[in-house]
């Protein structure tokens, strides 16, 4: 992944300006600002990046076992997960493990083929920032978050599940 698309960015269900620069592995560091580097580069240049004064996000390959990365990445403000094709669901598992197991609280950003009809599930898995593919209408994309008002299963969003509602209803009826 190279320079950011012209597509919009949604952060916490709001359309925002993209403050982050996606940096290729051979690109020089800017003097200031926020950059996203690959995990490989992050590992190779960790000391320099830490000392650079830049805000540094890390792009994680979707084949990576993120539970092993907790210590290494927990203090970075942003982790980017890859959606190379919209039908590739590996990042969904990574995001949940980052949120639910590693208790990562920074921004998790989806990059790649990020499309309207996948946003709700991504957000349920703990992805809270979306670099939309260039052709996506950001305003229309916001509507995707309200496609469903109920969920059956527990996930990273902490939404009360249908089963929990039933437990509550049963308790109230007692």
């Amino acid at each position, binding site marked *: 992944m190279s320079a950011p698309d012209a597509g919009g960015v949604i952060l916490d269900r709001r359309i925002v300006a993209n403050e982050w620069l996606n940096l290729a592995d051979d690109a020089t560091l800017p003097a200031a600002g926020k950059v996203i580097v690959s995990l490989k580069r992050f590992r190779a240049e960790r000391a320099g990046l830490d000392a650079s004064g830049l805000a540094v996000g890390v792009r994680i390959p979707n084949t990576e076992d993120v*539970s092993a990365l907790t210590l290494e990445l927990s203090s970075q403000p942003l982790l980017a997960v890859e959606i190379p094709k919209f*039908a*590739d669901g590996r990042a969904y598992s990574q995001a949940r493990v980052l949120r639910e*197991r590693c208790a990562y609280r920074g921004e998790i950003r989806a990059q790649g083929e990020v*499309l309207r009809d996948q946003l709700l*599930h991504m957000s349920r898995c703990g992805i809270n920032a979306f670099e939309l593919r260039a052709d996506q209408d950001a305003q229309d994309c916001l509507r995707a978050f309200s496609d469903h008002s109920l969920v059956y299963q527990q*996930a990273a969003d902490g939404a009360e599940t249908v*089963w929990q509602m*039933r*437990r509550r209803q049963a308790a109230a009826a007692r």
Partner: protein
Amino acid sequence: MYRYDELDQRLVGERVAQFRDQTRRFLAGQLSEDEFRSLRLRNGLYLQRFAPMLRVAVPYGLLSAPQLRMLGHIARTYDKGYGHVTTRQNIQFNWPKLEQVPDILADLATVQMHAIQTSGNCIRNITADHLAGVAADELLDPRPYCELTRQWATFHPEFNWLPRKFKIAFSSSTLDRSATKVHDIGVHLVRNAAGELGYTIYVGGGLGRMPMIAHQVRAFLPELDLISYLEAILRVYNRHGRRDNIHRARVKVLVKSLGAAKFTEQVEAEWAQLKDSDLRLQPQDIENIRARFDRHSYLEAAAADDGSYVAHLAADARFAAWAKRNLRVHRQPGYAAVFVSLKASGIAPGDVTHQQFDAVADLAERYSFGEVRATHDQNLVLAEVAKKDIYAVWRRLSELNLATPNIGLLTDLICCPGLDFCSLANAGSIGVAQDIFDRFEDLDYQHDIGELKIKMSGCMNGCGHHSVGHIGILGVDKHGEEWYQVTLGGSAENDATLGDRTGPSIARADIAGAVEKLIEVYLEQREDADESFLATYRRVGMAPFKQRLYGGAEALAEDEAAA
């Protein structure tokens, strides 16, 4: 019947609205073909050879009378007057128009039905024994556990973009009637030595071009750990299943390449992290579901069976012949399960007309607590009929052409839609089914042959489960002609095995004749009338069958080489 609560209903309603909007955006050019394809498949909508095909979910095969009437209404209003029972207990319509599908879904939602996740690379319809809740050999009714699993799988945010489709089947009886060992996950309800309820979990079975029997990954999983364990399996699969080759993407390939032991280790490691999370069920979660299933108040045995049934058996030989084949034991004294055969001559196996939907709904309401089941053998079952009513049910079924006395026999064959409907097929299957029907029309002959499962698929994808047929027939394309490979000795039951290929494929014109030859060999070789085709094959092996089919003239080496 499981009755939706307001929450279930709201979710289905929201899905209709969501799909209506997706269809609108597609028709307005805002969604590409490729993107809409993935979305519509997750709602059971295929674009087929001639028209779209809509697959409606029938969770664990259970249907209510109002649902059947709705299926009849859809067949009449949006289709050409009939629907089709699939090998995974669902119902397909072959002729709806894309623009009308949102309306069909809205109609379905009014009777608590939907098409959610009936296709696409996600968790599909949960299937179960078609005799669940009534079988004499059952530990307990698996359907509340199926329903829990259905709800967990519905719109699961993490598992909607799996490497490939994912199928889960449940069994709770001595005899596995749901082919669990050829599913991605097979769940068997069991009690351990201490008498505690739980599950034995199998993973990695499947049909298609690389058929495999599932491996046991856990001998005993406690009752409340079902969902956390399923989640662990799915997460391992979602992360590690292959995505580079569609033909290597099922979980069975992952299990095979890692080895069952290593796969199990990964699942257990993931589960160790999940088992004490919120995914652990509470007893009341199961009770909440169980309480939403109808309870049936049975008649006393003497009232359910007033003696007229036996009298009719004695007086009416046609009724007796049907009863012998198409009834199964019900655990409640005085009741029986009545099979509604969808395998009449001249009818594509599994087809149901709109009049039949309506009439079977009437029968269900009058005689079987308003419920019907769809079977993976593509029949229907009125599972709870009092013996005093069976004769009346039979008479009505006969009028409807739904009383062919062939359940479990040779002409009760299962087959996919084949080249007549499906864009994937290499060869026709419905026509071959008819040829076999014509050749074995004599029912006495079929009865003499006894229990025999012929399963036929029009291509390697194996929707007709040919790999586990006692006789399996697979359509292949050879230089633009329809040919058929034959396998023997497959089974999807407890002793699950994959069939062995007989040899070179057989031409369309000769395939029914080939089946006849196989039957001749069986009849000559069997020790007595109680030895089934499958048992005989397992005892005598391939040689005599092969000899009869090819007459030793196995010079078709190029065909073998090509395969």
